């Protein structure tokens, strides 16, 4: 296998950071949720890379990644439900006031 571990970790860190940017910078709640999905995927990439390179005989990395997948699915379901409910009330899902950096 020619690709060293640090390259996977770099891709994961980049993906995580892009996700952070998406969450913090986007106005639209659906886009924010997509950013969170990117972050969770970066986590999974980390987990599987660590698992493959460090403890391939122990299932904890893969099992952890499977649980992260479950949680991501649950979060998306609830999140999109809340977003649709908000849309029904306001006809918009802009989250300018969901503003984490100001407070």
């Amino acid at each position: 296998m020619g690709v060293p571990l640090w390259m996977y970790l770099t891709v994961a860190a980049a993906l995580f950071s892009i996700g952070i940017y998406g969450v913090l910078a986007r106005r639209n709640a659906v886009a924010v949720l997509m950013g969170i999905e990117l972050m969770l995927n970066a986590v999974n990439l980390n987990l599987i890379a660590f698992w493959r390179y460090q403890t391939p005989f122990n299932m904890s990395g893969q099992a952890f990644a499977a649980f992260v997948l479950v949680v991501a699915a649950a979060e998306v379901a609830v999140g999109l439900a809340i977003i649709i409910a908000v849309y029904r009330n306001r006809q918009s899902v802009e989250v300018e006031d969901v503003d984490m950096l100001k407070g």
Partner: protein
Amino acid sequence: MNFGEGLTPEAIAFGLFTILTIGGAFGVVTTRNLVRGAIWLIVSLFGIAGFFVLLSAPFLASVQVLVYIGAIGILFSFAVMLTRGMTNLKERFNSQWWLAGLAALTAFLLLMMGVVIPVFGNTIAPVSDQVTSTVDLGVALVSGNQYVLPFEVASLLLTAAMIGAIVIAREDD
């Protein structure tokens, strides 16, 4: 990746998946049209599935395709279509997009320092090509001495999320 030995098929695949993953992610966070955003997301998640194959985790790769692309991607598409005005966002970013960019950049640099330094330049190959199989993962998830507790709690979580989503999204009767 040792370029001195020439490009191995693996290195080429790695480069391709990196472009898909990171490129898709940039698409997700910058697009004006959220239908395209959902498609970019699928591209990015597909790249991750490719990495899983490279890392000898074929089961998770297939689950990634089924759950993320098959279910979550579609769910996003539905949400975008159920809520109008998502295909031509007038303002993509909030007023603090530059602060967000700064935060993301800082996070990236910190992560690089914390995560990549320990293994940078370390080209040691993985321990063995004979890794655990999907069977082992399946056993681990339901075996009493491994992950049966989180497995059961995760099932509760899915039930709670499902009921919760219905409670929120159903029309008032």
